[in-house]
């Protein structure tokens, strides 16, 4: 669940971003759209407690952000937020399995092989566990990155431009996977994108009581 009120972020010596209010119930999907430079990344950073809002209130997964110390914010992020970056950022030095193990290490948890294999299994890439990211196809890599983001069973999944540079078929696949993963976890899903295809890829039955909303950021809010 994500609730924002009067959220605004002032860049030091830079623009001041004011965001429209959002109220996303647990398990719903939020499509965060808008052209490049409209503040999507900043909104994600605020929701992930990476930066503090300059004004306004922000509650994510039942936690009021803005009152957390940076150490507490790191610990909270590890347990509450799953993140799928645009460039995936799978470590080329590590195998698929170790990439997931690293997520557990980063969160300060003990390595749990069963958990890792289950997460890979759920996305159908468990047989690639010992491969290096360089040996994966684009689609396989995205599944591995998604497995990593849901590994710690977060309440909120943030996906940053998941369809960028994908063809129509792969984009549909990616969005479908995200929706399935979020549904299985009961997690709130945020898809930040400037790709107009994503809105059309979300099936109509998600709209309405299943909780699909759209938050459109405009550049003129800068």
């Amino acid at each position, binding site marked *: 669940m994500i609730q924002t009120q009067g959220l605004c972020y002032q860049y030091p010596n830079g623009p001041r971003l004011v965001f429209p209010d959002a109220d996303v119930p647990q398990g719903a999907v939020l499509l965060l759209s808008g052209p490049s430079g409209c503040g999507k990344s900043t909104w994600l950073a605020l929701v992930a407690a990476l930066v503090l809002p300059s004004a306004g209130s922000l509650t994510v997964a039942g936690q009021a952000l803005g009152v957390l110390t940076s150490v507490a914010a790191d610990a909270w992020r590890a347990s509450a937020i799953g993140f799928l*970056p645009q460039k995936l950022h799978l470590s080329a030095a590590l195998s698929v399995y170790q990439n997931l193990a690293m997520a557990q290490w980063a*969160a300060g948890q003990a390595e749990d092989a069963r958990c890792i294999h289950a997460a890979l299994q759920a996305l159908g890439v468990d047989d690639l566990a010992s491969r290096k990211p360089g040996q994966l196809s684009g689609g396989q890599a995205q599944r591995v990155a998604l497995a990593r983001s849901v590994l710690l069973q977060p309440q909120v999944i943030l996906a940053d431009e998941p369809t960028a540079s994908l063809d129509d078929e792969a984009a549909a696949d990616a969005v479908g996977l995200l929706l399935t993963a979020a549904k299985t976890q009961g997690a709130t899903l945020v898809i930040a994108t400037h790709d107009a295809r994503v809105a059309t890829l979300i099936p109509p039955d998600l709209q309405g009581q299943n909780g699909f909303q759209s938050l459109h950021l405009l550049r003129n809010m800068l």
Partner: protein
Amino acid sequence: MKTLAFAWRYLWSRPMSAALNVLLLSLGLASITFLLLVGHQLTKAFERDLAGIDVVVGAKGSPMQLILSGVLHIDVPPGNVPLQAVRALEKHPLVASVIPISLGDNFRSYRIVGTSHDYLALHGVTLAQGQLWQQSMQVVLGATVAAKLGAALGQTFAGSHGLGGGGHAHGDNAYTVVGILAPSGSVLDRLVLTDSASVWKVHEDFTALDDDDRKAMEEEREVTMALVRYKTPMAAVSFPRFVNTTTEMQAAAPALEVTRLLNMLGLGTDVLRAFAAVLLLTAALSVFIALWSAVRERRGDLALLRMLGAPPGKVAALLLCEAVWLGLLAAALGLLLGQGFAAALGWFLKLDTTLLIGGMVWPPALAVVPALAVGVPLGAALLPALGAYRISVLELLQGR
């Protein structure tokens, strides 16, 4: 633990760079190891072999040669001095004791030293087997000699002329082994010890034509040098001058000559030390560049770790652990290389049989090598680690 494991993987994800840095670091560390080993062993050898000898009296020539040949047994002596002149020294009021040393022959390149029982007492060695010589032509073997030649009590052998291997064999006069010394770590380990009279006998039997000849020779008997102990330290002021001005011999103070020798070596070790420092500095720079570029290359990966909930300290620790791995690997390799260099030098200069320099010695001062090995790359990693600490996740999100 996990951090170290991940750091290890990251380090070897760029094998060329990692290997180069380990090599550079270990070369610097090997130089330092080598210097420490040589310095330690020389100092120890000098302290050990010089103990109890206040002054050495021998033929005129280089005083250092006298010390190197008669005390450390690594050089040839400048010549011989008459036995009578040495006997006269014993009567000098400032002299407590005189130990004669006669060199000239060898047994398979181990020196045969004619001396008195006092020489063994001076170095505080004990017998492992047998007994001391009771008459001429009986020998006591040093521990190394006995081990290397596999000699046993009762065995007989003939000495060869000269101090190296080969030379004319004194076949008519055979020595008998009557004792073997326990290892003492001193110069005596590699000597064949006998009575002074043995050396005279071998050479007189070899050259004398008849009994008259022999008689004349007995009066002209010589020793190579005498190790002198003073009654009082005050003698150091007057006794050497007395010897140098009133006799045909010279007096050389071992402490003085060794200090001189170490000063001469000091120039060389200073150059080597500077060289080692430059190598280490180069290695530090190389580690810095490698880690700095690693942070730049892996900006995204590191930022993602923050996104995954890793505190900044943990991200920085990952990088520092890479430096620690570099240091540990370089320490092991550097120590081995340094020991290898020392062993090679000992072998190359044929000093291994002299026990002067060799490998696989671990003086406590060597602890500085692993300390440097970990310290230098850690120092070089500080700035890159700070970069990793301060990495901005917002940049990752904004795709820069």
